[in-house]
């Protein structure tokens, strides 16, 4: 058994140290490099799993604090919420690493790609393990820097433009987070994450300043969570290689933003304080607008990856929406969507990546009949798409049901209409793809005898993930049990 002090160091340190190993390998040593990245991410996943089990059993997983300067310290500690995020990110990272070994085989600059890929893993783990706002801010800022080279990987003028938007939005967001941090630190010293909220005990006289701090933090994290109107960078960032889009822009980066929002909500302010500050309604409104508008925008996209990106914008907002309903079922709905959306969206992106590499088609209207050529891929796509719409028995239904219950408990029945509208819009932009792929003619031939439709390193993760979407839909008790445990610890 690894002692609790070591796990955070393993989870954060192994990828960071692993990048050093990667830089030593020559560009052409693809096999060794792939082995190395996969085993590093596997090691992280195992360490996180061990840590999560320890945490859910009430144990302590903590490293530090390492004091830096006058009250600031880097401090890593896992709590249930962090464990949830770390579990999702690290396990999906393993699959995505496998997938990207297949996807990237024909791209340039593979070494640079792997270096920043691993670096991003370490930074994401740092986010999950952060025990105070300073550490979170530190890794939030580093996440931008470590993922930027992945976003602009193609090196085209388009990628450059996307890169600028990414940096601009992200740094502005991080600056807002820093601003909120500074205001909070002025009120109560550098804030640590405490169950129930570090700022919960402040007197009402501090509320104007707290309001400012909350707005800064919420907007700052909303940038990475791609909440409208701060989402502009996400669709542009789809120029990145598909594994990057899948992992970073459906799972790690955007979820880091959502995770930051959850931290702000639960560990810094506490729901009661947020309510007392009168910030619930603006927050809820922002989430609702994002859900509605994101779906409408997705409907207009002809590029498959961009459609998925806008779908991410819309779906991610379910999580803050659930949280802002201020009822246990709503919180559970939001948190369970953190898991479910990650599973579904990464499946969709992986399928999109297979479509792009195998057929070269990127536009939605070019995909008629693609199910003939890529039957398994499109089946997986169909499963995840149905989940997005919220059809039983895929896991997306579980989230929606919880959110509906949460909305009724929280006294916000209009959310039902919103969810129904969103489901309808989701159906409108996913079902035509699925239906067209299987039931329309488009000049695709079935895969030649004996040949796979995509390399196993790409198809394997897709099938696993589609199964996971189904399993978590069939057995919602697993994920719901987990998020309820997390909810209790908030």
């Amino acid at each position, binding site marked *: 058994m690894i002692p609790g002090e070591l796990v955070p160091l393993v989870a954060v340190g192994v990828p960071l140290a692993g990048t050093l190993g990667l830089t030593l390998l020559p560009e052409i040593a693809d096999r060794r490099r792939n082995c190395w990245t996969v085993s590093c991410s596997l090691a992280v996943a195992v360490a996180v799993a061990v840590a999560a089990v320890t945490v859910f059993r009430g144990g302590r997983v903590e490293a530090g604090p390492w004091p*830096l*300067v*006058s*009250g*600031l310290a*880097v401090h890593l500690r896992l709590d249930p919420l962090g464990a949830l995020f770390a579990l999702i990110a690290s396990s999906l990272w393993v699959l995505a690493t496998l997938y990207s070994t297949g996807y990237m085989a024909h791209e340039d600059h593979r070494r640079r790609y792997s270096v920043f890929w691993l670096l991003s893993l370490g930074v994401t783990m740092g986010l999950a393990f952060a025990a105070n706002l*300073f550490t979170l*801010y*530190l890794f939030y*800022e*580093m996440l931008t*820097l470590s993922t930027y*080279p992945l976003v*602009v990987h193609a*090196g085209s003028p388009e990628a*450059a433009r996307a*890169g600028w938007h990414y*940096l601009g939005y992200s*740094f*502005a967001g991080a*600056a807002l987070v*820093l*601003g909120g941090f*500074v*205001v909070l*630190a*002025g009120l109560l010293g550098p804030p640590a994450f405490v169950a129930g909220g570090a700022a919960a005990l402040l007197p009402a006289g501090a509320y104007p300043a707290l309001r400012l701090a909350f707005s800064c933090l919420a907007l700052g994290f909303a940038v990475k969570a791609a909440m409208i109107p701060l989402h502009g960078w996400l669709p542009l960032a789809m120029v990145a290689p598909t594994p990057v889009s899948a992992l970073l822009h459906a799972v790690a980066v955007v979820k880091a933003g959502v995770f930051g929002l959850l931290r702000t909500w639960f560990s810094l302010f506490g729901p009661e304080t947020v309510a007392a500050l009168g910030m619930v309604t603006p927050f809820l409104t922002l989430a609702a607008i994002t859900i509605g508008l994101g779906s409408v925008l997705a409907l207009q996209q002809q590029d498959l990856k961009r459609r998925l990106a806008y779908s991410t914008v819309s779906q991610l907002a379910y999580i803050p929406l659930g949280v802002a309903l201020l009822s246990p079922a709503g919180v559970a709905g939001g948190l369970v969507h953190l898991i479910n959306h990650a599973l579904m969206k990464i499946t969709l992106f992986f399928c999109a990546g297979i479509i792009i590499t195998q057929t070269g088609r990127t536009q939605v209207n070019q995909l008629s009949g693609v199910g003939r050529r890529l039957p398994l891929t499109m089946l997986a796509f169909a499963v995840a798409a149905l989940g997005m719409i919220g059809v039983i028995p895929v896991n997306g239904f579980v989230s929606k049901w919880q959110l509906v219950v949460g909305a009724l408990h929280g006294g916000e029945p209009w959310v039902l209409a919103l969810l129904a509208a969103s489901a309808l819009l989701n159906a409108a932009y996913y079902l035509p793809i699925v239906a067209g792929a299987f039931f329309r003619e488009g000049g695709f031939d079935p895969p030649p005898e004996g040949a796979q439709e995509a390399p196993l390193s790409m198809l394997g993760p897709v099938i696993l993930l589609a199964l996971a979407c189904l399993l978590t839909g069939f057995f919602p008790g697993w994920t719901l049990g987990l998020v309820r445990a997390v909810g209790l610890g908030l």
Partner: protein
Amino acid sequence: MMGSVTANLPVLIVAVVLIASYLMPLFARYRRDWCAPTAAGALVAAFAGSAALAARAVTGEVVIVHLGGWSPPWGIEVAVDALTAFMLLVLTGVAMLILVYTISDIGHELAARAVGWYYTSFLLLVAAMLGMAMARDLFNLYVFIEVSSIGACALVASRDTEEATEAAFKYLMLAALGSGLVLFSIGLLYQVTGNLNFAFVAEELTLVYGRYPHVIWVAMCFMVVGFAVKAALFPLHVWLPDAHSFAPSPSSAVLSGLVIKIYAYAMLRLLYTVFGTQFLGADLAASLIRVTLLTLATLSIIGGSLFALVQVDVKRMLAYSSVAQIGYVFLGVGLATPSGLAAALIHVLNHALIKACLFLAAGAIIYRTGKRRTVDLAGMGRRMPVTMAAFTIGALAMIGLPLFNGFVSKWLLFVGGMQARQPVVAGVIILSALLNALYYLPIIWRAYFTPGPEQEESQVEVPLPMLIPIGVLALACILFGVWPAPALALVNQAVATLVPW
């Protein structure tokens, strides 16, 4: 023997550098290859001496030397407390690294006959700065200010091009204006107190403040403006961009990294020890001066960054960035709180490391490729990997990302702003970080992600003696970001001795 060395160590540090400086023209004429080792040896010795003094000063001990055994107010007093020891360490440490770089670089930038004189002025400048750091009377302070002005102008003029001469002339004029204002202030102080030694002047000032408040305020204002000119505080910075960008790269590093800081130090020392209560007081004049300092510092931070944003020449951009960064130091001084003061001091160290690193890296690129424009640096990450890595570290530190030393300064400045009930400081810091990102990141992005011209694919890293100082400075930026404790120990001791809060 040993005892007299330790007792007179402060004087010896200055003397060693000064003597080495005087030897340089001789060596340059008769033994040219002795120049570089002697200069480096002198600075290494000075650094070792400073380290020994710092080890004593960090405990709160003050090493005082009365020259010739004459005690003040008649004799000349030299003292090393924690603040002086801190400055000595920064000055000698960074100057030493820059000198190592200079040895390989300077033959490339100057005519052979000028090299000996270059070392002369370099060492003269360092000696004068060391003297300023330990001077304890107004007269000697003024002498060293003038010597350092001459040394600095010589470093700029050494290039012997039309632009460099013009820049040096402009620098000389404005530096003379600044020294003139300081001299005027010293004259006024001497008139009302009849003393030149800091401690005696300070004591007299409290006695005569009631009788001559206006004279003392005027003296304080002249002092602040004089040093603000010499430290290039916006809008008195007009001489700096030319001087720092047309000078040879090691000169730019020493001018931007050290010289403007030493004037900020001199002002800080005078405001806090000589004017002490008059500066920190609650009356209108004192608070007006503090507010003026804060305003000018803020203007400097924002204005310097805005000007840097539109520069196409990388060295000019770095020069404007120095205008912005010196604003941080003045901001800390103007806040007049323990953390603010600590921020000002730690930023003296941090900016010296960062800016020296950036100027030397830019110099290395110019040395190899002759490229000065930011847009021409495409593909440089591949051609000069170590240099560009150091430049990147420096740039990130300048932006103030956590775990780089720039962040430590910014955080302390923010805490100082809170102590002084000036939350606007936080906004200024964040805005400045964003502006910094706007002009540093494009360079890095181009260097790594834009392919350079086809024919320039081979690696052209500079020779090792130039690479080592750049690397050491870059590593120091990280070291003092991750582990600022040793520097902070000295700084906190300095703050504690400076003002009994």
